[in-house]
C-alpha cells in the first residue's frame, strides 16, 4: 500500500495521458481501418486544435471558443481529406502516405510561421484545470475527467458504429472497399464522416491534453500523434476498444518510466538515478516493435490473409 501511494502520481497522470492518447488513437484506427492509411497529419490536426484554442480564447469567452474550436478542427480534418487524400484514391499506397507526411509538414510549418516558433500559453479552462488532491497525489481535475470522458465518448462511438446506418456503412467500407461501393454506399461521404469523427475526438483530446502542459509549440502534436498510432496498432488496428486499451497501457507505462528512477532509488534497487526518463518516448516504439513481431494483428485485431 505504501508503494502504491508513493507511485500514485505516476499512475494517475498515466491514466490521464492514456485517455488523451485514446481520443487521438481512435482517429488513427478508424482512418486506417477504412483507407489503410497512416494519417500522419492527425497528430498535427491535434496540435492545430490546441493553437486555435490559444488564439480564439484571446478574443472570445470560453463558452464560444470551445465549440468554435471543435467545429474548426472538424472543418480542417474534412478539408485535408478532400484536398490531399481524395485525389490520390487510386494511387499506390506509398503516394497517399507521402501526401500525409506532406500535410503534416505543411501544418507544422504554417503553425511555425503564425506563432513565430514561440511557445503559446494554453488558456486555463476553469473547473477542469483546478487543483485537487487524491490520496497523496496533488493533481488537476482534468486527470479525473479525462478517463471518464474518454469512456463516455467511446461508448457513444461504439453505439454509433454498431447501430446506425452510417456506422454500418463504415463497417462495410472497412471490410471491402470496392464491394461496398458496388452496393451503393457513398464511399466518399463515409470517409469524410470518419475524418470528421476523428477530428472531433482530436479536438476534445487536445483540450484535455494541453491543459496539463504549459503551452503549444508547432511540433507538440508529432509525438502524441505517433504514440497514439502505436496505441492503435497495439490494440489491433481498426478496433476502437483496442485503441483505447492500447492508449491507456502506453500512457501508464510511459509515466511509470518517467518516474522509474525515483521509484527504483526509493525502493533501494539502484543507488544513483540512471536517467531512464530519456526512454519514455523510446519505450513506446519498443513496444510497437515487440507487438508487431509477436502478434502483428494487435490485441483485438482481426486476422487477415494476404491475397495475391
Amino acid at each position, binding site marked *: 500500500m505504501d508503494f502504491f501511494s508513493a507511485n500514485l502520481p505516476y499512475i494517475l497522470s498515466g491514466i490521464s495521458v492514456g485517455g488523451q492518447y485514446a481520443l487521438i488513437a481512435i482517429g488513427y484506427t478508424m482512418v486506417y481501418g477504412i483507407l489503410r492509411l497512416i494519417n500522419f497529419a492527425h497528430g498535427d490536426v491535434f496540435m492545430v486544435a490546441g493553437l486555435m484554442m490559444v488564439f480564439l480564447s484571446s478574443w472570445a469567452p470560453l463558452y464560444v471558443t470551445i465549440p468554435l474550436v471543435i467545429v474548426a478542427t472538424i472543418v480542417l480534418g474534412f478539408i485535408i481529406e478532400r484536398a490531399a487524400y481524395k485525389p490520390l484514391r487510386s*494511387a499506390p499506397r506509398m503516394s497517399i502516405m*507521402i501526401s500525409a507526411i506532406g500535410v503534416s509538414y505543411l501544418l*507544422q510549418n504554417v503553425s511555425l*510561421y503564425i506563432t513565430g516558433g514561440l511557445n503559446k500559453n494554453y488558456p486555463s479552462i476553469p473547473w477542469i484545470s483546478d487543483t485537487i488532491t487524491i490520496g497523496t497525489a496533488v493533481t488537476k481535475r482534468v486527470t479525473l475527467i479525462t478517463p471518464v470522458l474518454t469512456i463516455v465518448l467511446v461508448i457513444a462511438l461504439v453505439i454509433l458504429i454498431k447501430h446506425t446506418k452510417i456506422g454500418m456503412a463504415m463497417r462495410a467500407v472497412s471490410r471491402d472497399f470496392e464491394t461496398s461501393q458496388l452496393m451503393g454506399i457513398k464511399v466518399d461521404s463515409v470517409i469524410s464522416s470518419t475524418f470528421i469523427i476523428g477530428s472531433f475526438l482530436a479536438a476534445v483530446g487536445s483540450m484535455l491534453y494541453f491543459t496539463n502542459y504549459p503551452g503549444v509549440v508547432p511540433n507538440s502534436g508529432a509525438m502524441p500523434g505517433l504514440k497514439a498510432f502505436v496505441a492503435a496498432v497495439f490494440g489491433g488496428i481498426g478496433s476502437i476498444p483496442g485503441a483505447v486499451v492500447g492508449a491507456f497501457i502506453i500512457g501508464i507505462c510511459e509515466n511509470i518510466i518517467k518516474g522509474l528512477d525515483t521509484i527504483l532509488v526509493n525502493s533501494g534497487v539502484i543507488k544513483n538515478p540512471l536517467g531512464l526518463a530519456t*526512454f519514455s518516448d523510446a519505450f513506446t*516504439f519498443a513496444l510497437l516493435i515487440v507487438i508487431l513481431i509477436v502478434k502483428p494483428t494487435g490485441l483485438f485485431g482481426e486476422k487477415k490473409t494476404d491475397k495475391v
Partner: protein
Amino acid sequence: MNKTKKTIINFALLFSLILAVLILSITLKSSSMIFVVLKKGAIYALIAVSMNLLNGFTGLFSLGQAGFMLIGAYTYAIFTVPLEARIQVYQYFNGGIIHFTLPVIVALVLAGLAAAVFAFLIGLPVLRLKSDYLAIATLGFAEIIRAIFQWNTLGPITNGSNMLKMFPSFDSIIKDLAKDDGKHEFFKNLFVSAPWLENFLITILPILLSGVCIAIIVMLIKSSYGRAFKAIRDDEVAAEAMGINLARHKMMSFCTSAFFAGIGGAMLAMFQATIQASAFKSAMTYEILLIVVLGGIGSVTGSCIGAFLYIAASEWWLRGLDAGKFLGISAPGIFRNGFRLVVFSVVIMCVVLFWRKGIMGDKEFDIERIAGRFKSKKSKGEVSGNE
C-alpha cells in the same frame, strides 16, 4: 553508343563538373552561398540516393534514415575528436572513456559500418513487416536510437545530450594541410600563391566523396542484385516465385542504404563541424523523403537534382522570404521568419498531388537521350520514336 564512348562521356561530365567548381572558386568570393549549396547539396544527394535505393528501388517504405545518419555522425565524431580536445568536449564526463583517435577515412568507413550493423540488427525483426508497418517501425527505431544517444548514462561515449565538436571538418581538414608548424610549407606556399585553392578543395572534397558513394550505389543498382531489388519492388510474390531470396535481398538493400546514410551523416557532421543528437528528428527523415519525391522515386539522378534544388532553395534562393525582401518586393509583415518553409511545404504538396512523378520520374538523366531528342528534332519526320 558503345561502352567506351559512354565512359568517355561520363569522364567528360565529371571533368567539366570539377572545372565548373574550379572556375566558381576562382571567380567568386569564398563566402558565396553557392559553395554552401554545393557542399550541403552533395551530402543530401548521397543521403537521398541511399533512401531512394530503399524506397524507390526495393519498394521498402522505410523512415529510419535520420537514425542511421545519427549513428554515422556520432561514430565519426566520437572517434575523431583530437585527444587534446577531449577534455574540453567531454567536459561533463572527465574527457570521456575513449582515448584514441582514428584517421578521418577510417572513421568515415566505420561510420557507415556502424550504421549498417545497426540496420542488420533492426532489419532482422522489422523487414518481415509490410509497407506502412515497416514505415512506422523504422521511424520508431530511429527515435529509439536518438534516445539511446541522448542517454546521460552513456555520456562518457556519446557526450549525452551535449554537443560534440572540434572533430575534423571539411574546413579544418583542408586548413590543416597548411598548418603553421613548419612541416606543411608546400601547401602553405601553395595557398598563399593561389588563395582560391583552399576554398576549391573544401568544396570539391564532399562532392567527390559523395560522388564516389553514389557511383557505388549506381553500380549496385545496375548489377544483378539491383535487378532483384526492382523485381521485389514490382511484385514481391512474383519475385519470390522466380527464385529471388526475399529476406536476403531486402536485408542487403536495407544495410547498404544504412551504410551510405551513415556515411552521409558523418559527412553532415563534417560539414556542420558540430552535432547534437536532438537534430536528427523524424522531421529530418521527412525532409529527405520529400527530396526523393521531388526528384522522382526510383531515379538516382532525380534524387541528386532534387537535393541540390532543395538545398539551393532553402539555403539561398528563398532566404529572402524569411528576411523581409523577396524578388525586390519588401513586405516584412508577410515575409518573416518561417514563410520560406510554408512556401516550401505548399510546393511539395503540389508536387505530391499534381506532379506525382517528380522531376525525373523513374528515368535517369542521360546524355544520349537528350542528344537523341535534339537529333530527332533536327530530322523531324525522318526518324520517329528515337527514344
